[in-house]
C-alpha cells in the first residue's frame, strides 16, 4: 500500500486550555478528494492548521507522505480561508498568485517574467485569466477565492489542503473549483477540503471525515454519510461533550 499523503495519529489541540481536538486520527487516501465535515466549532479548520504546524498541538503525530512536513513542503499547498486576509492590500491578482512561487524563486530574488507567466497560467486554470492585473480589492468574493486557489495551484503540489473553499461563493466559482478538484485528481493529486455544506458532500467528494472535536467516522462518502453518523456529529453535541469530559477525567492523571 502507498503511504498516505497525510496521516494524523492521536492529535490533541487546545486553545487557552480548552480542548478543541481530542485524539484525532485521520488517514487521507492518495488520489482522492476528502471533505472534512462537522458543525461550527468542531475544529475543522483547527485540524488543517494543526496539521500544517500553524498552531501548536499538545500531542500527536503528523506525517506527510511518511515524513515530517519540512521534508516535503513543496508537495503540500494550503488554501486559507478567504476571510483570513485583508483584501484591501495593494497587490493585483497576479501578484497574489505569484506568492505561490516564492519558495521556488528563493530568498531575496525578485519575481521575474517567467514566474508571472506561470502565475497567469494558474489564473487561467481557475477561469481568472482576464483578471490578472485587477487589484484584489476590486474582485468579488468568489473571484478572491479563485485567486487563492490559483496561488496554491501555482505551487504544483501533490496535496492540497483547502479551508472552506466553497464558503459563500457564486455559482461560477463553485464550478471552477469543482473543475480544479477534478483536474488535480486526474493528475494523481490529493485534496482535503474543510466543507460546511452537508448536501453537497456526497456530490463533490470521494471521502469524508466527520469531525466534532473527535473523529466520528471516516471513509468513502457512501459509508460515512449515514443518518446515524450525522446525528452523532451534529445532533448529539451535548452527549459528545459529556463523553469527552468523562474520558478526559479518566485519562489524565490528577494534578497534585
Amino acid at each position, binding site marked *: 500500500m502507498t503511504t498516505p499523503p497525510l496521516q494524523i495519529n492521536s492529535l490533541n489541540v487546545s486553545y487557552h486550555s480548552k480542548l478543541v481536538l481530542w485524539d484525532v486520527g485521520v488517514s487521507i487516501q492518495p488520489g482522492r478528494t476528502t471533505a472534512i465535515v462537522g458543525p461550527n466549532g468542531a475544529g475543522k479548520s483547527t485540524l488543517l492548521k494543526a496539521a500544517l504546524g500553524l498552531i501548536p498541538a499538545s500531542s500527536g503525530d503528523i506525517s506527510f507522505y511518511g515524513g515530517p512536513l519540512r521534508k516535503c513542503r513543496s508537495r503540500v499547498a494550503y488554501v486559507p480561508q478567504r476571510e483570513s*486576509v485583508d483584501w484591501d492590500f495593494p497587490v493585483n491578482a497576479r501578484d497574489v498568485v505569484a506568492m505561490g512561487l516564492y519558495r521556488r524563486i528563493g530568498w531575496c530574488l525578485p519575481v521575474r517574467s517567467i514566474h508571472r507567466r506561470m502565475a497567469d497560467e494558474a489564473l487561467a486554470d481557475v477561469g481568472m485569466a482576464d483578471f490578472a492585473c485587477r487589484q484584489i480589492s476590486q474582485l468579488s468574493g468568489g473571484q478572491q477565492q479563485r485567486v487563492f486557489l490559483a496561488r496554491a495551484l501555482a505551487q504544483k503540489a501533490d496535496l492540497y489542503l483547502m479551508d472552506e473553499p466553497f464558503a459563500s461563493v457564486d455559482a461560477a466559482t463553485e464550478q471552477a473549483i469543482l473543475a480544479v478538484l477534478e483536474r488535480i485528481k486526474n493528475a494523481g493529486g490529493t485534496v482535503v477540503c474543510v466543507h460546511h455544506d452537508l448536501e453537497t458532500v456526497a456530490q463533490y467528494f470521494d471521502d469524508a471525515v466527520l469531525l466534532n472535536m473527535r473523529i466520528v467516522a471516516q471513509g468513502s462518502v457512501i459509508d460515512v454519510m449515514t443518518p446515524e453518523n450525522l446525528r452523532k456529529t451534529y445532533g448529539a453535541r451535548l452527549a459528545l461533550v459529556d463523553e469527552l469530559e468523562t474520558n478526559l477525567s479518566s485519562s489524565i492523571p490528577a494534578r497534585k
Partner: protein
Amino acid sequence: MAYPTLENVLRILTLQDHNTRIVLAGACAFGVAAGLVGAFLLLRKRSLLGDTLGHATLPGVAIGFLIAYGTGIDPRSFLPLALGATLTSVAGIAALLLIRRFSTIKDDAALAIVLSVFFGFGVALLSAIQQLPGGFASGLEHLIYGSAATMSSTDTSFVLVSSLCIAVICIALFKEFSLLCFDEPYARSSGWPATALDLLLMSLVVWTTVVGIQTVGILLVVALLVIPPASARFWCDGMGAMATVSALCGGLSCLFGVFLSALFPKWPTGALIVLSAGAIFAAGLVFGPTRGILIRSIRTRREELKLRRDHMLRAVFECAENSSESVPLSQLLTKRPWSRRHVTSEIARLADRGLLTFSLSNDSVQLTTTGLSEARRLVRNHRLWELYLIQHAEIAPAHVDRDADRIEHVLSLRIVEELEDILDQRPHDRLVPRDPEKSHL
C-alpha cells in the same frame, strides 16, 4: 517673528551652509528609510507599535547618558544614547510579547500600557539627570522633540549608514516582507520562517526609530513611519509602487522640513518635518489619483450624469415608440417623478451632445440618429434583463422594472449576448428592440 531675507533664502536653497548640507543629507536618508519600513509596518497593521517603540526609547536614551557620564565618555555623543534607546525599545517589545502571552489583554491596551510606563520611566530618569552638574539635561530634552539642526557630521554618518542598511534590507527582502504582511499563515505553511521575518521587521522598526530620534525626536518619530506609507496609498496601487512612493514622501517631508527650519531657525526641525508630511498626506487625501476625495467624487458625479442621461433617453424612446417620433415635454414629465427644471436641463445637456433635438415651436423633443441607436440599446438591455428576471430569477413582475433599472447601465456586451441566448429572442421581438448593429443588416 523675523521673516528670512531673500538673500537668506537663496543661501539656504543653494545649500551654501555646510551645516544645512549635513542636516539635509541625514534627514532625507532617514525619511527614505522610514518610508520603506513604514510601508511594511502599515500593511502589517502595526503602526501603533512604531509609536510605542518611539516612546520606549526615552528611558534608554537617559540610561545611555548616565552610563556615558559615569564612565567618562562625552555624554553628548549620540552613540551611547542610541545603544540605550535600542536596548529599551527591545525591552518594550519583550514586555508586549509577555503581556500578550500571559494575559488576555487586547493589543491596543497592551501597547498603551507599555508606551506610558516606559515613557514615564524615561521622564523620571530625565529629572534625575537634571540634578547632575554640567547642565546636560537641556541637550537631552532636545531629543524628545528632535533637533536635526544640531546634528554633527559623526551623527550624520551614523544616520546615513543606518538608513542605507535599512533600505537595502527592505529592498532585498521585499517579496518576503510583502508575503508576511499579506498572509502570514500561508507564508508559514509554505515554509518561510515567518517568526524570524517578523522579528527582523520589528528590529528594522527599532533601528529606524533610534535613527530618527535625533532628526524628528522621540515623540514624533512614529509620524515618519506611518504618514508616508498612508499618503502613498492615495497615489498608487501595487506594493512596489507603494513602497517607492512612501520612501519618496518620507524623503520629501524631511527635505521640506529641513529647508523650513533653516528659514525659521526658532522652529524645531522635527515638528516642521512632521507638518510637511502632514501636508503631503492632506494633498494625497484630496488630489490622489487612486483614492483621493476629488477623483472619487468626480467618478460618482460622472456615473450619476450617465444614469440621468440613460433614463432620459429611455423615457424619450418609450414615449416615441408607439406614436410619432416627436415627444412633447408634458408627456416626458409623466414618465418619472421629474421636475420640469430637471427635464429641461437634462434635455439641454443631451441636445448639446447631439443625442436629441429640441423644438421650441411645439415644446417637444426628437431623438437624433445617434440618440435613437443609443436609446434602443438601453431599452433593449433593460427589457432583456426584465425578461430574464421574470422568466429565470422568479421575481415578481411588479418588482422587475426597478431592479432592471439598476442593472441595465452596467450590462456588458458579453452579458447581453448571454441573455439573448438564454431568452431565445424570437417570441419577444415586439417587446425587445432589435440590436441597433444588427438591424442595419
